[in-house]
C-alpha cells in the first residue's frame, strides 16, 4: 500500500534481449529504483501491436513494485509505426506460437537474471496476449503467476487452427505451471462465455490453482481506456483482483 511519505522512483527504457532461438529482439523495460529484491512481470502485447497501452501498462506494473518487461513480438517484421508493423504481421497470419513462447521465455530469463530479482516472475497479457499468456505458462516452466485477460482462441475449434497456431492452448491445460487469474467480459465473442466455461472445466479437471472473474456489461478489451470497449467499473475492479493475486504469489 502506497503512502505519501514513501520515496518512489522508476526507470523505463527500450532494451534488447534474447528471444526465441537466441534472436535479438527489443523490449520495453520498466523497473522501480531501489535495492529490491523485486519480483518480475512479463507483459505480452495484444494483436494491435507493441503499442502505447502496453508501454503504459509496463510502467503500471513497475509502479506497483515489479521489474516489468514487454517484449516486441513483432520485432522480426521490421520497423515502422506500430500500426504499419502490425499490418505486416497480420498479413502473415500473425506470429507463430513457438516463437512467442520463446520470446516470452527470453524475457522471463532476462528478469530472473537481474541481481535484484526475488526470483519470482509473473506474466500478463490481453486479447491474443491473453491467449499467449496461457499458452506460455503451459508450454514453459519458470513462471510463478499468470494473468490471462480475455484470451481469445484458448478454446479454439479445430477448424480455427492455423500453421501459426496449430494447437488450441486449452489442450495443454494439464501442463499449466503456475497459479492463474482469468479476467473475462460476459459480452465477449472471443472468448465467448461458453468457451470460458470450457476453459474453467479443464482447469478444474486438471486440479489447477486458478480464479476466474467474469463481468457483466463488458465485452472484449474492456481495459482499453482509448477504445469504446472500455468499461470503467469493471476495469477498475479487475485491477483490484489482479494486484492482490500477484502480491500473494510473487511477493510472498
Amino acid at each position, binding site marked *: 500500500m502506497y503512502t505519501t511519505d514513501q520515496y518512489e522512483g522508476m526507470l523505463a527504457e527500450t532494451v534488447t534481449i534474447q528471444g526465441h532461438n537466441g534472436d535479438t529482439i527489443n523490449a520495453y523495460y520498466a523497473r522501480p529504483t531501489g535495492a529490491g529484491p523485486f519480483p518480475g512481470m512479463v507483459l505480452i502485447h*495484444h*494483436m*494491435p*501491436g507493441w503499442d502505447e497501452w502496453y508501454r503504459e501498462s509496463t510502467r503500471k506494473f513497475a509502479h506497483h513494485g515489479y521489474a516489468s518487461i514487454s517484449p516486441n513480438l513483432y520485432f522480426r*517484421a*521490421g*520497423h*515502422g*509505426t*506500430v*500500426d*504499419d*508493423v*502490425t*499490418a*505486416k*504481421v*497480420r*498479413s502473415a*497470419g*500473425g506470429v507463430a506460437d513457438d516463437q512467442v513462447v520463446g520470446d516470452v521465455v527470453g524475457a522471463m530469463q532476462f528478469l530472473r537474471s537481474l541481481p535484484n530479482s526475488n526470483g519470482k516472475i509473473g506474466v500478463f497479457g490481453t*486479447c*491474443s496476449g491473453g491467449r499467449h499468456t496461457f499458452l506460455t505458462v503451459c508450454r514453459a516452466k519458470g513462471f510463478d503467476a499468470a494473468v490471462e485477460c480475455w484470451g*481469445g*482462441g484458448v478454446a479454439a475449434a479445430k477448424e*480455427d487452427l*492455423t500453421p*501459426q*497456431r496449430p494447437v488450441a492452448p486449452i489442450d495443454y491445460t494439464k501442463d499449466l505451471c503456475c497459479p492463474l487469474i482469468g479476467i473475462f467480459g460476459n459480452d465477449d*465473442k*472471443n472468448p465467448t462465455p461458453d468457451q470460458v466455461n470450457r476453459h474453467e472445466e479443464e482447469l478444474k479437471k486438471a486440479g489447477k490453482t486458478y480464479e476466474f472473474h467474469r463481468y457483466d456489461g463488458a*465485452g*472484449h*478489451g474492456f481495459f482499453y481506456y482509448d*477504445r*469504446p*470497449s472500455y468499461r470503467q467499473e469493471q476495469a477498475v475492479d479487475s485491477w483490484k483482483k489482479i494486484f492482490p493475486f500477484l502480491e500473494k504469489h510473487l511477493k510472498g
Partner: protein
Amino acid sequence: MCTTILNRAAIEGSGKGQNGWFKISGVNVSYDHPYHSPLEHAMTIDFVNEGEGPGARVAVELSLESARHLVKCVEGVLAQADAGGYQDEIAGGGR
C-alpha cells in the same frame, strides 16, 4: 491475430502513403481488431509493397456494411468499364 480471417492477392497499381506515391504489389484484406476505427472488429484493407517495408502501406478500416458498399461500388465501376470497352487499355498511356 484474434480472428485470423485473411485474404491476400497480388495486384498492380500505385498508392499514396505517408512518404508519397509508391508502387503497389499486393492487397491484404482481413477482418480483425482495427487500430483506429472505433469497432471491435473491422474490415482492414491494406494496399502494400512488402519489398519496401512496413511503411509502404495505404490502409483503410471499414465496418462490414461499408465494406459491402465498397465492393458494390467497385463492381459497378468495373461493369461500366467493361461495357465501355476500356478493359484492354495499355498501362501507362493515355493521359
